């Protein structure tokens, strides 16, 4: 259906390009914005523009930031001998939410995927290797899937000659779930990754 306002038609068309937003949701959002006071709409519009204009990649860890280097890389209280390798910047947010990790990060920007032709040159592995010299431990916090495994093995192979501890995050049963319903693959990995209690 075409609206009587071309402006409304345009905003609905633009909003429906966003992930998970269909035309109906876009229409609801557009009418919601229309009902908001002008200053609130201005804040929203300015925030969207700032997102593109102010946010950059940290030149050290490739996390998203407004200052280069980012606040994590600049923080002298963080453990500068440990680096946590993640796939995307939102994985940094997930780990930071735990408030348990105090080291640095490295954002790869993707994973090796031979089936799609994504090789080591397409992600930031070279930049990681340049940072590892001064590290004691590299933690590979990468999604537990086949691409993740390929990436982990590739990085481990590249770092094999260096005096650095390489670890990967544990794979297994989510807290609160039942063993009875765990699939064979997850349960096997959980058994392999068991830790000593006593």
């Amino acid at each position: 259906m075409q609206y009587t306002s071309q402006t409304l038609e345009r905003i609905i068309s633009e909003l429906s390009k966003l992930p998970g937003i269909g035309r109906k949701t876009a229409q609801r959002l557009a009418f919601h914005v229309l009902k908001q006071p002008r200053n609130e709409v201005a804040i929203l519009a300015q925030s969207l523009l700032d997102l593109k204009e102010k946010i950059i990649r940290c030149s050290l860890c490739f996390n998203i930031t407004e200052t280069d280097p980012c606040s994590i890389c600049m923080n002298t209280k963080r453990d500068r001998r440990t680096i946590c390798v993640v796939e995307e910047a939102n994985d940094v947010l997930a780990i930071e939410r735990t408030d348990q990790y105090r080291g640095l990060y490295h954002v790869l920007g993707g994973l090796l995927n031979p089936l799609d032709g994504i090789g080591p040159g397409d992600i930031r592995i070279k930049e990681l290797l340049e940072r590892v010299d001064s590290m004691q431990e590299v933690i590979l916090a990468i999604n537990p899937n086949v691409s993740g495994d390929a990436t982990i093995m590739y990085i481990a192979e590249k770092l094999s000659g260096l005096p650095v501890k390489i670890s990967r995050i544990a794979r297994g049963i989510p807290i609160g779930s039942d063993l009875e319903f765990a699939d064979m693959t997850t349960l096997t990995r959980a058994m392999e990754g068991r830790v000593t209690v006593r």
Partner: protein
Amino acid sequence: MAIRQTEAIVLKTMTYGETSKILTVLSKDHGKISLLAKGARDTKSKYGGSLEPFTHINVVYYEKEGRELQYLSEASVLNGFLGIPCSLERLYPAMAVLEVCSRVVHGNEEHPKLFELVRQTLEGLSKTSKRPMNGLLYFMAQLASLLGYRLEAERCSHCLHLMEQSNFKFNVEYGRVVCGACPPALQSTTLTLTKETVAILAQLNKSNGAGVFNLAISENSGREVFRVLLKHLQYHLDELTSLNTLPFLNAS
């Protein structure tokens, strides 16, 4: 809408929406199928690790005719082939098997022999501690046979004499191995092969899979066999002209 149950091997996955996945699987009874697994990436998903590439699963899905994407209802692991993602030497050939299979199978063609070949090759790759590339070579030789393009290597395809000399040519256009004594007209687009390569090709044709990883193949011969099989398959199957996994195999 019909409910279907079949064995399948996951060939490829891609993310869909916030927590879902779209799988391409090779099924035992219904060929290649695309399945939507809702919520599969959620940590509390009932599918867990059962939808990763290589996994041999039993699936239940809802099939609607005319729809390209079917809805997955249940999946249980029959074999995770967990040895494959433990080393790049096994992972790259296994991924090449999946890619070749994904490209040569179209639509819902039932192909139980191909399914068994893929399952058997992945099982071998998962268990082997030596020469994983042999698994890929075996798969390619057997695939050519299954599709009707068996690469004859026991006898010269022109004069039919047994291959007992030391000079051999592979004629890409004819898809034949010919001996050095045969007329040059048949050898217009050829690769020169060693005696070892021709012997390996013959063994791969005859092999039933068991023991293929025990075949002692030198690195050079392995590369030559791979090159011949790839050129042979590529000549007959346009789908294989630019394999994504090829640079990974060459680098390993």
